[in-house]
């Protein structure tokens, strides 16, 4: 292991690091939006959209991101639809993450106890008010651990972007290895880079799981 090699590679890894963060950030925000829309459509059983959301969730959850990306990046252009690599990556990540987030929210909404819903009904809340004041606030708290787990999952999935030539962290490492053959050093930096992003998140996740298990609300 040579520190000089590591040091030389840091500027390149820095760029990869930024890109991984940026793509993850956009992908996660997008996933939350898509997931929220899907879970709301399913919660209120909006006709047609409700079925569309279900089909989408099943397709997205049961196929690998890598194939989704290959499709977007290599196969779609054959049909005349072409996006840039980063856009493909983001679309793919949102396509995948949206369903995971949707399941997370839906799980949270369903986790709100029946007696809470009935108490809400008993004081005359309408369907919308019930959702607004009872189901959503409690459901979101319940879905927080699932959300955190999804965030970690999605950040890790960005490593697959390497197959569509996005120079994120993993791609950077593999590229450097291909050129200079110092796999020990580059893999070391790579693991550290992911640890910097993910270890804090993983710790937060553990704390959140504990908090929700003991059902804390308010402050």
């Amino acid at each position, binding site marked *: 292991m040579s520190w000089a090699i590591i040091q030389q590679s840091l500027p390149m890894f820095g760029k990869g690091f930024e890109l991984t963060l940026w793509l993850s950030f956009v992908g996660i925000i997008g996933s939350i939006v898509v997931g929220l829309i899907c879970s709301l459509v399913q919660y209120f059983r909006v006709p047609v959209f409700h079925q569309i959301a279900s089909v989408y969730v099943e397709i997205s959850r049961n196929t690998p991101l890598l194939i989704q990306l290959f499709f977007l990046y290599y196969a779609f252009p054959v049909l005349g639809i072409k996006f840039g690599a980063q856009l493909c990556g983001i679309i793919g990540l949102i396509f995948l993450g949206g369903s995971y987030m949707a399941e997370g929210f839906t799980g949270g909404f369903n986790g709100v106890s029946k007696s809470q819903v009935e108490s809400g009904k008993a004081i005359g809340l309408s369907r919308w008010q019930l959702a607004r004041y009872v189901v959503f606030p*409690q459901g979101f708290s319940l879905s927080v651990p699932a959300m955190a787990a999804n965030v970690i999952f999605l950040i890790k999935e960005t490593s697959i972007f390497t197959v569509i030539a996005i120079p994120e962290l993993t791609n950077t490492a593999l590229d450097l290895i291909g050129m200079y053959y110092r796999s020990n050093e580059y893999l070391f930096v790579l693991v550290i880079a992911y640890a910097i992003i993910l270890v804090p998140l993983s710790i937060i996740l553990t704390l959140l799981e504990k908090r929700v298990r003991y059902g804390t*609300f308010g402050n």
Partner: protein
Amino acid sequence: MADKVLEVAHLEKFYGKKHVLHDINFSVDQGEVVTLLGPSGSGKSTLIRCLNGLETYQKGTITFEGQKIVPTEKNWQQLRQKIGMVFQSYDLFPNLTVMDNILLGPTKVQKQDKQAARQEAERLLASVELSDYANAYPRELSGGQAQRVAIVRALALHPDFMLFDEVTASLDPEMVRGVLNIIEGLADQDNMTMIVVTHEMNFAKQIADRVLFLQDGEILEQTSSKQFFSNPQTSRAKEFLDSMDF
């Protein structure tokens, strides 16, 4: 005859193929207190939940304040402002403070003025000796306190009619009394019309004008409280009363 607030006629309820309520007929007069007694699984909760639209029923009619109820979710939602209900499991919303729990109905459903609603809530909280807890979250309350708040939450809508389903069943014995006192106050001082499901026989005896005794989803007896406790007509009711005081 006094004003009939509620009339139930030929009510039938099935869970799938299971027939849990058989041809239920009774009515409740303005200001009357009816207690619903009966062994576990006899259908007390199911009946009372039908009266608040929390369960659908397959046959029969419910008439409230002279109007036959068309049982759509929308109608029920309107009616629930007039028919308050309190459950066994003091289900306050854990994400809201005591005050917000109470204000939710008056301000969001009834669109009452926030200031006025808050004053009324404070008055009600004071009446159950919980003024200090307005800003507490439900988890900071004991079971008895939480149950009292749940009653206040229902009362804040100023219902014409109250349904209580075993509201003391999950309380510690020492906490039962405070809750029962409040219900007694509602019956005696406020002359509230209500149906009370309870396992506290002494309390039932004290509060009830009339008793409905349910068994396997059928009303076996429907008599004045005095008569029921001194001289039940059916042997099943007698057996039931015997088992209750050991």
